[in-house]
């Protein structure tokens, strides 16, 4: 029995309640929310310090019966890889919450309450060890996101919310049907006590939901309008963290509990991953705006991670785990930078209006350049380590997959360098005024910690990837090295 995981979930939710009712001005509510999100990071560091990295068991877990007749319980805990997923969540959410405070979102009470609620829900997704609890958190993420996009989004936000909700609700309700059937078949909803199933239908119920969330071709239709119309920090959360919940679902539920369907459907999923990777990269190369590049690159990255997940060996899965963490940090940083650039220029990030921002703005140039370079998997970076592991893993499935992956890495260099030069270099764009400021100290305080995390991981990627798969939930024995 350990309270730390529960605290990680309940603390932001309780903070949200306080923000919702406390009689303060929006500025102080924002400060309070920022403080809570930082305390959350501190709690996570405490959790990491108590974590036994040598053990592969579920740790910091807590279990209490919720309703016993169907075997549903409050069971939360963290495996070694989930600890890193929680870590990337709290760090990214802190950055995004503080960004919202820095920008001064209107209707602050609602805004900060929802951001904190979202933090709690996402941490819940990554730590829930009960299938119904997992579903509850998975759905709970949607509630704040819906309002965050619908109220603070751009001019097309109503359409964006409808598209987003239609896709995700369809997916998650299919999953609910699968969960009910699977859990009742097993007689318990506790994921640590469940056995495997060979039902293709159940497998597909889960996979479709996760593929929509990730997103994976051809279920990515909600992506363009949602990412473009959301506020920058919400796009950052969507792409950096919420999408990872889908990939986590594949890793934690689809793969361990459905070995036979995974075997039967492996090629299909690898094909979809490859298409997402190549198609996403090409779309990113064609995107007319900075956000377009980042969002399609996250489609491509989701495809790459799926290649790793379904490589059927520990190399691929280790790489996928590392790449999930990498991309969460990279994508959050890039979307926040997109927001900062858009605010400075009064544009929506169109390359036609931007350019030449490096001159006189060394901090902006340095940060954009650093994150951009890390994101295109330059050797010595942590993303290189992740992609290398994934490619090495998928190579064992067949060299063709690895070729696709390698081609996509070239494409990644093309679209990311194009984006960097479109913003920073070339002629000064018509929307870039002389007076557009360099990154301010506050903004640096938001982005630089993300960059530092990435640099730290580049120095020691093995911290995350090292034997990620040996921390094996039930049903994973096939992958233990």
């Amino acid at each position, binding site marked *: 029995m350990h309270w730390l995981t529960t605290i990680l979930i309940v603390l932001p939710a309780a903070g949200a309640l306080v923000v919702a009712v406390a009689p303060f001005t929006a500025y102080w509510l924002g400060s309070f929310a920022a403080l809570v999100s930082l305390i959350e990071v501190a709690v996570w560091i405490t959790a990491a310090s108590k974590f036994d990295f040598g053990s592969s068991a579920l740790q910091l877990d807590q279990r209490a019966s919720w309703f016993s007749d*169907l075997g549903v319980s409050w069971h939360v805990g963290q495996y070694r890889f989930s600890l890193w997923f929680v870590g990337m969540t709290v760090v990214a959410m802190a950055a995004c919450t503080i960004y919202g405070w820095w920008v001064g979102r209107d209707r602050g009470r609602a805004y900060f309450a929802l951001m904190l609620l979202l933090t709690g829900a996402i941490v819940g997704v990554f730590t829930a060890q009960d299938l119904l609890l997992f579903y509850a958190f998975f759905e*709970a993420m949607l509630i704040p996101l*819906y309002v965050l996009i619908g109220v603070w989004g751009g001019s097309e936000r109503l359409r964006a919310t409808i598209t987003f909700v*239609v896709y995700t609700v369809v997916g998650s309700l299919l999953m609910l049907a699968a969960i009910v059937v699977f859990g009742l078949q097993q007689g318990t909803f506790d994921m640590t006590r469940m056995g495997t199933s060979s039902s293709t239908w159940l497998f597909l119920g889960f996979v479709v939901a996760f593929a929509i969330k990730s997103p994976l071709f051809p279920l990515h239709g909600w992506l363009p309008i949602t990412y473009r119309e959301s506020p920058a920090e919400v796009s950052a959360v969507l792409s950096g963290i919420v999408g990872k919940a889908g990939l986590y679902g594949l890793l934690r539920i689809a793969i361990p509990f459905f070995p036979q369907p995974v075997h039967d459907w492996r090629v299909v999923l690898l094909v979809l991953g490859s298409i997402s990777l190549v198609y996403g990269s090409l779309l990113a190369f064609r995107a007319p705006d900075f956000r377009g590049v980042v969002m399609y690159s996250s489609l491509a990255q989701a495809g790459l991670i799926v290649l790793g997940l379904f490589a059927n060996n520990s190399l691929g899965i280790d790489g996928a785990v590392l790449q999930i963490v990498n991309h969460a940090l990279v994508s959050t940083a890039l979307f926040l930078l997109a927001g900062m650039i858009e605010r400075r220029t009064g544009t929506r990030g169109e390359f036609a209006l931007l350019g030449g921002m490096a001159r006189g703005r060394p901090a902006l140039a340095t940060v954009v350049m650093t994150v951009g370079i890390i994101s295109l998997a330059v050797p010595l970076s942590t993303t290189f380590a992740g992609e290398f592991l994934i490619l090495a893993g998928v190579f064992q499935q067949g060299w063709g997959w690895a070729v696709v992956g390698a081609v996509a890495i070239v494409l990644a260099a093309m679209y990311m360098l194009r984006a960097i030069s479109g913003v920073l270099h070339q002629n000064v764009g018509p929307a870039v005024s002389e007076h557009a400021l360099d990154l301010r100290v506050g903004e640096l305080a938001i982005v630089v910690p993300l960059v530092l995390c990435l640099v730290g991981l580049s120095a020691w990627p093995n911290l995350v990837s090292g034997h990620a798969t040996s921390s094996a939930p039930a049903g994973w024995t096939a992958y233990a090295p």
Partner: protein
Amino acid sequence: VIHKPHVDWFALAPSLSLLAAAGLLLMVAVLVPRGARRPLGALLAFAGFVASGIWAAFLDDRSPHAATLVHDAMWRDRWGALAQVILAGSGAVAVLVSYSERMRDEHVAEYYALLTAAGAGMAFFVQASNLMTLFLGLEWFSIALYVLTAIDIDLIGSLEAGLKYLVVGAVGSATLLFGSGLVYGITGQLAFDKIAVAGHAHDAMLVVGLAMVIAGLAFKSSAAPFHMWTPDAYQGAPTPVTAFMASGTKIAALVVTYRVLVTAFPHDQHLWRWAIAGIACASLAWGNIGALVQRNVKRILAYSSVSHAGFMLIAVAAANQLGARALLYYLIPYSAMSLGAFAVVAARERELQVPVTLRNLAGFGWERPFLGVSMWVFMLGMLGFPLTGGFIGKFYVFAAAYRHGWWWLIVVGVVATMISAYYYLGIVRAMYFRDTAELQLAPAGGSPPHDPLLTFGVAVALVVTVGSFFAVQPLIDVARSAARALPL
């Protein structure tokens, strides 16, 4: 000497206390000066519902074994008692919501008298154990509701709604009565359990009777295709009455449907299971598709109540212990959500003095933060999202269907939920995503009317909706012991 049957007054107390309140209220209508009628009437009605709820809770505690009352006319068991508790709670909240309703002072005591009389009828109905008391209870609360629907003669459409409800309701009652007659004619028995003993499977006449009983009850639970009165009656009735109808009638009708089917017709289970499943699918389809095209919020909620009848009928079709438990559990958050949602509609209606549509709901969430957030939670609950009991309710219903082996009912329910997301979230969208300036509505003028009783009622509904998500185990335990009263 006339032999009187032994009467267990305690078992009748939930119904009788409401009846007593109704009687007192009628005297209030005559004897009390006009200015004092409204507060005194509301107080008496509230006290009646609370007393009924307390008696029912005691009854639930003291009736671990089912027994019959008054010459086998009624049941004393936990199934009925728990339903009475939920009914009494709904009635009490309905009284709170009613208090500030624009109503003529000369009618207000009669209004509360009818409300408590309807409550008494429902409390009686859920204990019915033979075809006579079944029909008596049904007519008792229905007639009170017909009048309540039409009571506000100043409200456009109220009278029309009342008439529609009366005509369609009379058809439903007649169907039930005809069906009961056929069942009695074949078996020679009135009591449910004796019908089960006397009846034979595959007796064509009995099956016709059974079908007509199901149809008659489905009229009351507003399940498709017997729902056609619902949108008009819900829209036309004064909103607090709608709130009470939506929760109370549904609780009573579904609980009794379950009891009648499993007690009186176990031989024909394979038949009525399919019939109920069919009605459930029709309700889910029709309720959700109908709601998609509505603009009036009360009509949306009316169609949503049709679809919820469908969900709860899935639990009936499952016809197992889990299904009975699921129904009783589902009713708790459902009645809270639907009362709360109609209460919020009533608040907006009083503010604007016009029917509430999606359009004039704009900005409401920002103007009235508490009511807005509450409405948001009620909509999420009806949609079956987590952090509300609606989620657990749907989960239990699906589990019951699966336990019976009907996974396809889960698929139907899931597809229906997907469709419903559009209009439930549409209400949230209307409240928050547009603001009044954007739509250039005429300002309502002045600060919104202060209505502490309604706000309190909404708060109670909110606590039940969210609380039932966390406190599943105690509620399920109560529902489980209630479900044991049925011969499943």
